[in-house]
């Protein structure tokens, strides 16, 4: 059986390492593109949110590439928003196009133990020890690739040779997908960091930090936000983006091995309490906690990326406005749908960067 995961920057790397360790085939993930978005727009509901439409097209592309099963974590919970319906929709859309065996598997919502049993069954019933080792590989790779992403985000506005940090990231990330043990992943991380230290940086360059806030799957995919992070870097802004897959995945679980993630997750929730006492959907609470934390640690503005029709984003907007007002920092909401153009967005980013720099 051929497997794949939903898109989301580095998530697929950890999935690939784990699934291949169990002896399953993981199909190389295509990058999101306009063709997928257009196909999804034609085949999904009229006023579905943008990720919904893009994922429809993405699922169809995977089906064409021979994928039998897409694996998705964390559905059927108060945070799930439309994920369950999305998973079923993606599967149905591809099956309707002549791929009857294509399916999407999602877990969660019934308790961790049942989720683990389901997962074990889907992975071909490996021995419990092997299952555990695969999980450890997943966690180590996910955390390590997140760490690499943070380093690249930090280095990009400071690098002497433009593109050096990205080239480094592009070289090292895929290697983690080949890791077959925790030690191997750790060794790769040490090697990658050692090479990172060789990237030439301009230490005295004036850098203004800003917070980049939004729903995880969207802020981690350059396709959705027209590569905002790099655009802001080129405008002399350092983009702080603390939300990561490892934070949300392990922050939800109480695992000794990921106590740091849990602690940070709880910390963000606590910081958000002043503005949000409920959990309406998705990770709105974490987004708000991150925004407050980053501003208090020196971020000079907030860029909120939202996609048209996204209910969590609609809810997040007025609350982030309130945070920005209370802390006196500029905020830019960037709303994107399938008709948005990169050019108009660039102009807004430049104006925002000017404003933030002048205020600084």
């Amino acid at each position, binding site marked *: 059986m051929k497997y794949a995961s939903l898109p989301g920057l580095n998530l697929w790397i950890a999935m690939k390492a784990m699934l291949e360790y169990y002896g399953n085939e993981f199909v190389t993930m295509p990058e999101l593109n306009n063709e997928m978005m257009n196909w999804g727009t034609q085949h999904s*509901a*009229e*006023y*579905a949110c943008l990720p919904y439409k893009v994922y429809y097209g993405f699922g169809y592309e995977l089906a064409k590439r021979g994928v039998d099963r897409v694996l998705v974590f964390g559905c*059927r*919970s*108060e945070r*799930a*928003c*439309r*994920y*369950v*319906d999305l998973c*079923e*929709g993606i599967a149905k859309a591809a099956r309707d196009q002549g791929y009857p065996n294509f399916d999407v598997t999602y877990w969660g*919502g*019934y308790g961790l133990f049942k989720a683990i049993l389901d997962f074990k069954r889907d992975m071909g019933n490996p021995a419990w020890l092997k299952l555990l080792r695969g999980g450890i590989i997943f966690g180590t790779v996910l955390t390590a690739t997140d760490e690499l992403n943070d380093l690249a985000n930090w280095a990009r506005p400071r690098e002497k040779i433009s593109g050096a940090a990205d080239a480094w990231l592009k070289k090292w990330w895929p290697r983690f997908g080949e890791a077959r043990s925790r030690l191997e992943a750790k060794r790769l991380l040490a090697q990658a960091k050692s090479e990172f230290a060789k990237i030439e940086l301009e230490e005295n360059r004036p850098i203004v930090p800003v917070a980049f806030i939004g729903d995880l799957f969207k802020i981690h995919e350059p396709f959705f936000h027209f590569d905002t992070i790099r655009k802001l870097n080129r405008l002399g802004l350092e983009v702080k983006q603390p939300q990561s897959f490892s934070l949300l995945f392990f922050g939800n679980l109480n695992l000794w091995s990921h106590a740091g993630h849990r602690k940070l997750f709880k910390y963000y929730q606590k910081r958000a309490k002043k*503005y*949000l*006492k*409920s*959990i*309406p*959907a998705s990770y*709105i609470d974490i987004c708000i906690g991150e925004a407050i934390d980053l501003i208090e640690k020196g971020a000079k503005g907030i860029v909120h990326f939202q996609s*048209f*029709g996204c*209910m*969590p984003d*609609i*809810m997040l*907007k*007025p*609350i982030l*406005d*309130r945070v920005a007002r209370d802390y006196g920092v500029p905020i830019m909401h960037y*709303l994107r749908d399938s008709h948005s153009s990169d050019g108009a967005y660039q102009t807004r980013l430049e104006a925002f960067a000017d404003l933030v720099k002048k205020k600084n």
Partner: protein
Amino acid sequence: MKIAIPRAGLYHLYHSFWVAFFETLGFEVVVSPPTDRNILEAGLKIANGEMCLPMKIMYGHILWLEDKGDFMLLPQMSEAKFGSAEPGSGNFFCPYFVGLADLMAAEFSDLKILRPKMGFHDGMVEPDPWLSLAQELGKSETEAAAAYAKASAAYQDFSVQQKNIKPAASGKTIALIGRPYVTYDDYANLNIVDKLANRGFAVKFWENIPENFLQAGLDQVSPRFRSHWFLTNREFGAINHLASQPDIAGIVYLVPFNCGPDFMIEEAVIQQARSRKPITMISLDESTGEAGLNTRLDAFIDMLK
């Protein structure tokens, strides 16, 4: 002390509980008037343009009530148990109603909000958040328990009242299915109930359907294709049930434009019912015109003949 309650959103389902609870505690309850043009337009000025029509209406009601009570009641909707799907699935309220108090606190900094969690189990409102709220408002444990008991009884009475349908002279009934804040808000739905009555039809809502039939209707849908959302699943169950009822001439399915939960299943619902019963879906937003609605209803009724 005055408690302000907006006549919007889930008020249309749970007002009997809310009003009885606070009145029994001895508080004055102020409810905003039925939605009208002024309320909607006030809401449109402040609500996020992407929101659905019922949320825009909600903003308008809150603006109307802003200075008319000591506290505003905006319960935080919690999980509801319905249907035979596995625990944790299909029981969630729309995020706007879960986070309504947080949204309004962000918009209106001076608003004093009461935000008890409102969850359900076996058709009953879960008591603990309401008992705690009464005590926070200075009432004794006994007073709180009495208020909860009276509110629960009022809620049950309301459910029974909802089941009384006025028969039409023609003897024909049309089922009007949709979110209660659309089907019961005459301004939002452009008086569709009167329009159907004027055309000789009695109107049946999903609240008129006994719980076990709703559940049986939902059970016809594979658990995989049930929705994540509580009200959407009730619509699904109701339409499935009504589609096989001989006394129902047709089904009108009302959907607020840009409704996050409903957009997912509207096509599935219609496909499932279409082979068994005439059904039409009408999408409503603030710019929906009355003439257009009349034409669609006339066409649908012609088809029923």
